[in-house]
């Protein structure tokens, strides 16, 4: 299967790889997927007092499309408020990276990771949780 140039770019030069201190109140962590399914994403956000995302990091176990989806997600998250961040839709990722149909689940996983990280932050800071949509796969 041929990968798009954007997938190859994110895969070869992933943005924002790393780990934030998950014990900090200002950090939200989302860990989604499962090793036996062949992909696990960990996405973390650091949020300031105005609920703006100042930093985002990821680590992903998975195929090139999964790595690219999470790398792209961290780029899009930085500088957004935690409410704006919820508007990132998996289909935006599919479009940006030109993912083929068989790789759509990678983008779904990235969206799940974003939501799960935001919820983790909200829980830590006593904010009401929003309901996570059931994963599409």
């Amino acid at each position, binding site marked *: 299967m041929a990968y798009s140039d954007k997938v190859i770019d994110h895969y070869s030069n992933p943005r924002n790889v790393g780990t934030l201190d998950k014990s900090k109140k200002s950090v939200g962590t989302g860990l989604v*997927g499962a090793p*036996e399914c*062949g992909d*696990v994403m960990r996405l973390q956000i650091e949020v300031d007092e105005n609920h703006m995302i100042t930093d985002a990091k990821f*680590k*992903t176990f998975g*195929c*090139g499309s*999964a790595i690219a989806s999470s790398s792209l997600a961290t780029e899009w998250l930085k500088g957004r408020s935690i409410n704006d961040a919820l508007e990132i839709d998996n289909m935006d990722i599919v479009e940006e990276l030109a993912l083929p149909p068989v790789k759509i689940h990678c983008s779904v996983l990235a969206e799940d990771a974003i939501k799960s990280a935001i919820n983790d932050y909200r829980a830590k800071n006593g904010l009401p949780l929003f309901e996570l949509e059931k994963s599409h796969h």
Partner: protein
Amino acid sequence: MIKTPIYLDNNATTQMDPRVLEAMIPYFTEKFGNAASRNHPYGWVAEEGVDYAREQVAKLIGANEKEIIFTSGATESDNLAIKGVYEMYKDKGNHIITLTTEHKAVLDACKHLEKQGANITYLDVESDGLVDLQKLEAAMTPQTILVAIMYANNEIGVIQPVKQIAEIAHKFGALFFTDAVQAVGKIPVNVIEDGIDLLALSGHKMYGPKGVGALYVRRKNPRVKVTSQMDGGGHERGMRSGTLNVPGIVGLGKACELCIDEMASEAIRLSGLRDKLESSLSELEESYVNGNVQHRLPHTANISFKYVEGEGLMMAMKDMAVSSGSACTSASLEPSYVLKSLGLSDDLAHSSIRFGLGRFSTEEEVDFAIENTKKAVLHLRELSPLWEMFKEGIDLDSIEWAAH
């Protein structure tokens, strides 16, 4: 300078040897006759080419040339052997024994027969990929007509104890069929010494052309027959109708001849390169060699690199053509059923790479492969949350993963 991507997928197919092509060319052009044409020299010349190839193939496996049936490849040979034996001998019994790690052509032919009333036992292999002979013997019944067990496995390269398997099959009056696609031309295979009744082989796995293969069908002690699966002109002693693929057959014969001459020295050279590859990659933490390391093909290595995913790894290894145990092509990922049969967990099966060396592999290429694989594994572990957790001493089994 080496040409990239370097080809290390010789269990999937091999590059045709130029000497094979040279032998084939006249049979595409001036020697174009139909080997079944008895009335003129065009037919005679083609038939001579086929007869000579039949001898070459027979010699490689210790058979008589009359026992070689040419086919379109190993999938057809597997189908003809299994379905043909079942249809021929089903009055004697309806039980067939095979392994869970067989090639799909064998497994699916068996599944097809199940619908027609056959009783199939799919034996599990041990964690090293080999069949337990006691379990095989325990599975035999008076109804067993066929034991279908591969000579060497295509994913992990382990060599089954075929001689003992044949003895057990014969003790119970059953025939022994072996899919020897990965073994023939790579290691010594002898149908007499091994007690094989039917054997499938393929041209393109041994530096010959694609689209041609053979089925060995024993003629003496016992005389074995298979019911043909295609109706037509009654070619190949009535077992396989269809105009013979003369250039392909000539190429297969030439490929067999080259293997007879070069197999022994090649096996030494390739196992040396394979061992170098394997020991170098085993220096990486948390890497595991899959399958029995004593009884296996000289040119195949299957290694799992824990905490990295196979398809992602292959992408980082884009300068190498290898196979992964992971097929991430749908929402539900299917790790290799062969590796799962060895008892590997799904994540370890997803993390496996098969390296298949061949006649045209060089030491320079193997060094390149070692260097690039190491780099790729380290790059992906940098990205892997699982590797980080492992390094922090977190037991991954203790985590409740979000099922999806």
